[in-house]
């Protein structure tokens, strides 16, 4: 744990006249779960999309494994070992689990001169990888649409890990999930971290962050408000930082941690 796996330095991103990011820095070590917190519009999505190669930073540097990176496409970031699981774009519901799992990385075999998809291998690996994550598929041809929201996130995480991600970016994986599904996803995040993979976990739910995070960085209005280690900060302090120091609206009978 001496040099960080990825180091984002003074990242700025301007969209026409809007400054979405005004100099954000963040580093992530292997085997660490770094939570990125912030309210809606704080710039979380823009920041991770920069990390994932979707946006090019207007200013600032990205260093990955000690080398300065210059991603122009998501594929570049992926090839380097940065995988992103987007909340709404994780899976295609009409396609089977296998087809989704291998999308963009289809295994092929040759039948004579013709290259075809190796479904036997694809199905077998999909089933076993799902099992490791605690999902028992009825069959690999099952459409993703039949899975629950948490299971879909899990398939996407399993896919990223299987394809050799060194850094896994999770974009609000728990925000649309129920209690039990959230617990499953968080357990899988923990499992992935213990394999030595660096995790960037984006959320605006302090409790989910506290459950798995090693360090916490809070974004507000395109700027970093600071990074804290686990145990150095209380949920209430995090909550207040996310709100930008402003008092959250309270109401009579509010216990203060309603969020």
């Amino acid at each position, binding site marked *: 744990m001496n040099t960080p796996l990825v180091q984002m330095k003074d990242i700025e991103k301007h969209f026409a006249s809007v400054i979405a990011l005004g100099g954000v820095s963040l580093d992530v070590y292997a085997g660490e779960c770094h939570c990125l917190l912030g309210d809606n519009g704080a710039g979380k999505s823009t920041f991770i999309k920069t990390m994932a190669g979707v946006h090019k930073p207007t200013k600032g540097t990205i260093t990955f494994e000690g080398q300065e990176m210059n991603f122009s496409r998501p594929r570049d970031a992926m090839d380097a070992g940065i995988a992103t699981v987007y909340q709404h774009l994780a899976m295609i519901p*009409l396609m089977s689990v296998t087809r989704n799992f291998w999308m963009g990385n289809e295994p092929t075999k040759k039948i004579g001169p013709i290259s*075809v998809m190796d479904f036997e291998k694809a199905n077998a690996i999909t089933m076993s990888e799902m099992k490791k994550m605690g999902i028992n598929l009825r069959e690999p041809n099952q459409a993703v649409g039949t899975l629950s929201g948490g299971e879909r996130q899990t398939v996407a995480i399993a896919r990223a890990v299987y394809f050799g991600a060194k850094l896994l970016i999770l974009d609000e994986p728990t925000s649309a999930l129920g209690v039990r599904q959230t617990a499953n996803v968080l357990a899988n995040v923990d499992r992935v971290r213990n394999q030595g993979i660096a995790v960037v976990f984006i959320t605006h739910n302090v409790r989910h962050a506290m459950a798995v995070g090693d360090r916490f960085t809070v974004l507000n209005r395109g700027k970093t408000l600071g990074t804290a280690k686990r145990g150095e900060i209380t949920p209430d302090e995090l909550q207040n930082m996310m709100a930008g120091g402003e008092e959250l609206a309270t109401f009579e009978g509010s216990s203060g941690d309603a969020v």
Partner: protein
Amino acid sequence: MSDERVKQVSKLQRAMIRPELGAIAGVVLVFVFFFMIAGDSGMFAPKGIQNWTVVSAQFAIIAVGACLLMIAGEFDLSVGSMIGFAGIIIAILSVQWGLPVWVSIIAAFILCLALGALNGFLVIKTGLPSFIVTLAFLYILRGLTIWLSITTTQKTIIGGVKQAAEGDWLAPLFGGTILTGLFQWFADLGLIDTFSRGSRMGQPVVEGVPMLVVWAIGLIIFGQFVLTRTKLGNWIFASGGDAEAARYVGVPVRRVKIAMFMFTAFCACVFATSQVMEFGSAAADRGLLKEFEAIICVVIGGALLTGGYGSVVGAALGALIFGVVQQGLFFSGAESSLFRVFLGTILILAVILNTYIRRMITGER
């Protein structure tokens, strides 16, 4: 994590949740129906079978292209105009300019592929719905075809292609028949009727398998194979299912979509060339409404208009339903305008069934 609230789905029900379901049911219904009302009209005699097979094959050729394109999430409304355009190009080049027919055919294919690529490129670059872009080309190409035909020949029908194609090496690939020896043998065995008088006395009434049918079968097999067995097939599903999600995992969505526009144009050109070779002439109004008929075949075949789901075999069965009904109404002596009534009705039924099947797959409520 087995969930006791998920009902066990029976094997039968699971087997039924497939895109081709509606089309299979339709084929059975249509055959039973016409067997009953036109069974003794010669519709199911060799000559009759050839008749509706050829019509179905025509539908199938353009349906395969439209199917892969629709699964990739796009439409092409310029298919019909492209059929007219390709035909006129072949006729002008070969008859008017005196170029060899094979040169004319290859030129038509190159032009069509380029137009398909242009369609795709405009859709990708502008981000406009393919509906609008290809609707524009529906008019542009049709207008251009009529203009070209009139300015070069003062006519909208150009004949004489058959004479020009005499002895050409490429033309027989689109006109003509294969397996003539086999059919002669069938005739000698008495399985197929023979002409009893005239210059073709002793020859079978059906001389062989028309190349149009061979192309249709070839394209269906090719399309189904690519879609279900290859990497490209997975990319086609992904591009239509959710282009953004596919792009984020590295699927070259743009290239896939442009390739599918080109494939659709290729199919239109196959259709046009076969028709020109069969009739020996090209007409500027050929292919009218074909784009919609292709789309209807694809939808009957179980594809979703929104993309990401469908089947080439389903689309081919949709084409078969079309061919059988269109010719069946003719054989049974019914008013042929009823065909359009049938088209509209079956389209609605197919879409309703497809929506239901999609709900079954994705568990939507």
